[in-house]
C-alpha cells in the first residue's frame, strides 16, 4: 500500500466552523463521566471536559501544555480499541504519545454535528478495521492545520515546516514551536482540501506494542463503571421482568414492601417488569425479593429444551424455510458416486454473554430533557432507546458512555436496560436513578447465542479426496429477531452462514468441488443475540471438526487433508502452517498429549490454532498448550492482539466446557456462575500467539480466535480418546478413552 490521498469532505468543514457543540454543558448535570481515565491517572481532576478548549478538529483537542486529547467514538470494553484508535490518530498527528489522553464524545454531540465521528457501534470486530481510514485522516488533517498555523505565524511556506512529537520545526530558520502554542490559531483555520496518509512502512506508532492508555485506574479501583456511578441525590432501582420471554406483568402487591427500609416507590416498567426504587440498591434488591408478583406467562410458558431440540431436529430434513448459503457443483451426484460417505450431526446450545458487570444504566428525566449514563457498545443506539423511552426528541436527550465491564455483544444491539432505566426515571422526574440488574436477572434475560444443529455429509473418492460436502444447518436466525432489515429479500439470514460464504470477510477456507450449505430457519422463543464471534463459533465447530472426521475416514493426516483443499486459500494456509510448525505437528508430543487443528477466516482475519490436550483414564481433560496464529492484515498493537487471542480462548473454551443455557417452562434455568460456570486460572492453557500481519487489508481481532478454540480442542480430544463429541457443553460428556 502506498500513500493514500484523501479528500477532505464536508464533515471537516463543519468541524472547523462548528467547534465544540458542547451539548453536555447545556444540561443540568452536564457530567462527563468518566471523561478520561488517563487524565486522572496523570493527576488531573476527575472531570476535565475539553468543552471550551479550542479543538483543532473533531478528533483532536490540544491544550496549551501540549496535552493531546484524542476523541474516541467506539467503546472500550477491554478489547483495547481505545488505545489502538488513539495510536492511529497520533500516528498521523505526529504528536507526543506520552501526552495523549482520550475522551468519548457523546452520541448526542455526534448527531448535532452531522455525525462527524461516524459510527459509535462497537461490534463485529469493527473498532479498528471499520474506522482506520477516517481516524488516521482526522489526525492528518489536524497535523496540517497545526503546521499551517505555525507557518502563518512565522510567515513562511507550510511546506518548509515539519512536525514530530508535538514540536513544529521550520528547518531553514531553525525556529521551533509546539502544538500547544499554535493549537488555538490552528482551530481558526479551514482544514486543507487534501491530506495524504502515510505509507504503512513509515508508521512509527501503529504496529508498536505500546501500553494501554486505560490500565492504571483498573488496578486501584478508580475506574468508574456504570454500576459504580454515584450522582448527587441519586436513588437506586432493582428490577424483575417476567421470567418467561413474551410474558407480561399481571399484578404486584406494593403494599407488602412499601414500609421496608429505604424503599421509596414500586413502579411498573413497560408491560413486563416491576422495579423497586430505594435509597440503596441493596435495599431495593432486598425489598424486591419480598414483593408478591403475578405474571401472565403468555404463550411460551410450557416450552422446554426438548421442544426446541425437536424443532431443530425436524429442520435437518425438512424442505420448509430452507435457504442456500453457498453452493457449487452437484453435491447429490458426488455423494452417489463416492467411494465413501461420512455423516455427522452436531448441536450447539444457547450461551449467555455473562459480562462480569451486570446490565445497568442511570437516568434522569424531566419533561424537557433526559440524560443517561451507561456502559454501551453503541452510544447512538443507547441514545435512540433513551429518547424513545423518554418520549422526547433525540435533541433533548444524551447518553454519557462509561467503560464497559464486559460487552461481548450484549450491550450493542440491545439497550433493554436503558429503556427500563428511563421508564423508571420517568416515574420520579428530576431524580437520577441507577438501575442495576442482579446476576440472576442478567442470566435469565439475555439475548442468547442462538441454537443450531448441523448435519454434515461428505463424499470421499478412492484416494481419500473430498469430492462433495453437504452441510444443513437448522436453527435460530439472529437477524430475524434483531435486524430483519438486514435479511435477504427471500427471508434468508446471510450471517447464519458465517464461515461458509463463497467469499468476503467470512469465507470458507477450503475449495470443495461439490458443495451445498443450507439453513433451515427455525426460531424458538428464546431471544437470540450477537454473542462475541456470532455464528462462526458453532459453524467453525461444525466445519473444522467434520473436516477432521473426514480426514480420519480417509486415512489421512488432518493437516495434509486440509492442505489439499487450501491451494486457493493461501492466507488461511499460511496461518495453519504457522501453528502446525510451531506446535511440532507430526512429531509426537509425548506425555499422553495429543494435538488438534482448526483454521477459519472470519471478520476478515485469518486465524488458526493447534491445541495440545491430554485426557486421563477417568476422563479428565487437561488443555496444556494452544498455539494460535492470526493474520489481521495490519497489527496495530501486537501486545493487545496477544491479549485478545489469549482471552478468546477463555471465552471460547468456557462456552465449550461449561456454557449452555437450558429452557424449562419457557424460562432459562441457569441463574448464576454456579450453574453457568466459566473457566478459571487452573484450567488456562499456555498460549503462544503468532501475530503475522501480511498487509493490504484490515481484519478484526476481538472475535476471530474464539472460533478456532473449540474445534482445535475437540479435534485434540478425538486424537487422545477416539471420541467425537458433537453435543455441548463438554461437562455433560463422558471423555473416558473409548
Amino acid at each position, binding site marked *: 500500500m502506498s500513500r493514500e490521498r484523501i479528500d477532505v469532505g464536508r464533515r471537516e468543514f463543519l468541524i472547523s466552523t462548528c467547534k465544540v457543540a458542547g451539548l453536555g454543558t447545556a444540561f443540568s448535570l452536564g457530567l462527563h463521566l468518566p471523561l478520561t481515565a488517563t487524565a486522572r491517572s496523570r493527576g488531573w481532576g476527575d472531570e476535565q471536559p475539553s468543552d471550551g478548549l479550542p479543538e483543532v478538529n473533531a478528533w483532536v483537542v490540544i491544550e496549551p501544555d501540549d496535552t493531546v486529547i484524542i476523541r474516541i467514538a467506539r467503546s472500550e470494553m477491554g478489547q483495547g480499541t481505545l488505545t489502538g484508535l488513539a495510536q492511529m490518530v497520533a500516528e498521523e498527528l505526529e504528536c507526543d504519545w506520552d501526552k495523549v489522553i482520550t475522551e468519548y464524545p457523546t452520541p448526542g454531540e455526534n448527531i448535532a454535528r452531522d455525525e462527524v465521528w461516524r459510527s459509535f457501534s462497537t461490534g463485529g470486530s469493527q473498532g479498528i478495521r471499520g474506522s482506520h481510514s477516517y481516524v488516521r485522516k482526522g489526525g492528518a488533517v489536524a497535523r496540517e492545520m497545526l503546521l499551517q498555523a505555525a507557518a502563518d505565524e512565522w510567515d513562511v511556506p507550510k511546506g518548509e515546516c515539519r512536525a514530530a512529537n508535538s514540536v513544529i520545526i521550520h528547518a531553514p530558520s531553525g525556529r521551533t514551536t509546539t502544538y500547544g502554542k499554535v493549537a488555538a490559531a490552528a482551530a481558526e483555520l479551514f482544514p486543507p482540501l487534501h491530506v495524504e496518509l502515510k505509507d504503512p512502512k513509515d508508521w512509527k506508532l501503529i504496529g508498536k506494542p505500546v501500553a494501554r492508555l486505560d490500565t492504571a485506574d483498573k*488496578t486501584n*479501583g478508580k475506574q468508574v463503571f456504570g454500576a*459504580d456511578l454515584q450522582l448527587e441525590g441519586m436513588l437506586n432501582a432493582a428490577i424483575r421482568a417476567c421470567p418467561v420471554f413474551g410474558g407480561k406483568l399481571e399484578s404486584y402487591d406494593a403494599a407488602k414492601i412499601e414500609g421496608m427500609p429505604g424503599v421509596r416507590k414500586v413502579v411498573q416498567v413497560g408491560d413486563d417488569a416491576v422495579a423497586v426504587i430505594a435509597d440503596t440498591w*441493596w435495599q431495593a434488591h432486598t425489598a424486591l425479593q419480598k414483593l408478591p408478583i403475578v405474571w401472565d406467562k403468555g404463550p411460551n410458558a410450557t416450552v422446554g429444551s426438548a421442544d426446541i431440540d425437536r424443532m431443530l431436529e425436524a429442520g435437518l430434513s425438512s424442505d420448509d424455510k430452507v435457504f442456500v448459503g453457498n453452493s457449487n457443483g452437484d453435491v447429490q451426484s458426488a455423494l452417489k458416486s463416492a467411494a465413501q460417505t461420512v455423516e455427522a450431526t452436531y448441536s450447539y446450545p444457547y450461551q449467555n454473554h455473562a*459480562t*462480569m458487570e451486570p446490565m445497568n444504566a442511570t437516568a434522569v428525566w424531566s419533561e424537557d430533557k433526559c440524560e443517561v449514563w451507561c456502559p454501551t457498545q453503541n452510544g447512538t443506539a443507547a441514545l435512540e432507546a433513551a429518547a424513545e423511552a423518554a418520549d422526547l426528541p433525540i435533541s433533548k436527550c444524551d447518553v454519557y458512555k462509561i467503560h464497559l465491564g464486559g460487552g461481548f455483544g450484549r450491550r450493542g444491539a440491545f439497550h433493554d436496560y436503558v429503556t427500563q432505566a428511563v421508564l423508571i426515571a420517568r416515574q420520579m422526574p428530576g431524580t437520577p436513578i441507577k438501575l442495576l440488574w442482579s446476576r440472576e436477572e442478567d442470566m435469565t434475560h439475555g439475548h442468547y447465542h442462538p441454537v443450531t444443529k448441523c448435519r454434515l455429509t461428505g463424499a470421499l473418492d478412492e484416494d481419500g479426496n473430498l469430492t462433495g460436502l453437504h452441510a444443513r444447518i437448522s436453527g435460530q436466525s439472529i437477524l430475524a429477531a434483531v435486524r430483519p432489515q438486514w435479511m435477504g429479500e427471500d427471508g434468508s439470514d446471510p450471517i447464519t452462514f458465517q464461515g461458509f460464504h463463497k467469499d468476503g470477510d467470512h469465507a470458507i477456507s477450503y475449495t470443495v468441488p461439490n458443495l451445498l450449505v443450507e439453513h433451515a430457519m427455525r426460531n424458538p422463543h428464546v431471544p437470540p443475540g450477537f454473542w462475541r464471534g456470532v455464528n462462526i463459533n458453532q459453524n467453525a465447530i461444525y466445519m473444522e471438526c467434520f473436516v477432521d472426521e473426514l480426514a480420519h475416514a480417509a486415512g489421512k493426516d488432518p493437516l495434509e487433508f486440509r492442505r489439499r483443499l487450501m491451494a486457493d486459500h493461501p492466507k488461511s494456509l499460511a496461518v495453519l502452517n504457522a501453528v502446525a510448525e510451531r506446535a511440532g505437528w507430526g512429531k509426537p508430543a509425548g506425555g499422553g498429549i495429543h494435538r488438534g487443528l482448526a483454521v477459519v477466516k472470519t471478520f476478515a482475519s485469518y486465524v488458526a490454532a493447534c491445541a495440545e490436550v491430554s485426557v486421563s483414564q477417568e476422563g479428565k481433560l487437561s488443555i496444556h498448550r494452544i498455539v494460535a496464529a492470526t493474520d489481521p492484515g495490519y497489527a496495530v498493537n501486537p501486545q493487545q492482539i496477544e491479549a485478545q487471542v489469549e482471552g478468546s480462548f477463555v471465552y471460547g473454551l468456557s462456552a465449550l466446557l461449561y456454557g449452555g443455557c437450558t429452557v424449562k417452562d419457557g424460562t432459562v434455568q441457569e441463574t448464576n456462575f454456579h450453574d453457568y460456570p466459566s473457566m*478459571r*486460572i487452573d484450567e488456562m492453557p499456555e*498460549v503462544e500467539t503468532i501475530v503475522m500481519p501480511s498487509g493490504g487489508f484490515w481484519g478484526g481481532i476481538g472475535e476471530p480466535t474464539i472460533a478456532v478454540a473449540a474445534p482445535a480442542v475437540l479435534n485434540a480430544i478425538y486424537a487422545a480418546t477416539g471420541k467425537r463429541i458433537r453435543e455441548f457443553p463438554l461437562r455433560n460428556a463422558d471423555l473416558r478413552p473409548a
Partner: protein
Amino acid sequence: MAKLKVNGQEHEVEVDGSTPLLWVLREQLGLTGTKYACGIGICGSCTVHVDGKAVRSCTLPVSSIEAGQSITTIEGLSPDNSHPLQAAWKALDVPQCGYCQPGIIMAAAALLNENPDPSDADIDARVDNICRCGTFNRVRRGIHQAVKHMKGGRSA
C-alpha cells in the same frame, strides 16, 4: 449501626446488620472499587481483606465483622497504586475490561501476604476468580513478576 475500620479509617455506618459488607463498602462508604458480579461468593469480584485474609464480601453480613478487625479494599492496598502487584499489572497491561481486576489483585495480594513465593499450583488454588475477558495468563505472570520485584527489594 456498624463500626468498621476500612483502609485504616474508622467508620460508623447506619445499616441493617444483614447487609453484605460489599454493599456497605459500595453504598455507605462510596468505595466502589470492590465489585458486585455474582452475589453468591463464587466469582471473587468482591474480594477484600479482613485482617489481611481474602474474603468474598458479597456474602459476608456486615454484622459478622468483629470489633478491631481491619478491612482493606483495593482503594487501600497502596496509597499510590504502587503495590508490587499493581506495578506488575501496569507493566504487563493485565486488565482488559478491568471489572474483575480489583478482586483478582486483592486475592493475589492476600496470597502473597501468606506465601511470598507461591507456586503455580498455589496461584491456581487461591486466585480462582472468574474473568470473562480471560486475563489469566497475564495474571499469573503478574504475580510472578511481583514476587520477583519483592525479592529484589528485600535483597537489595
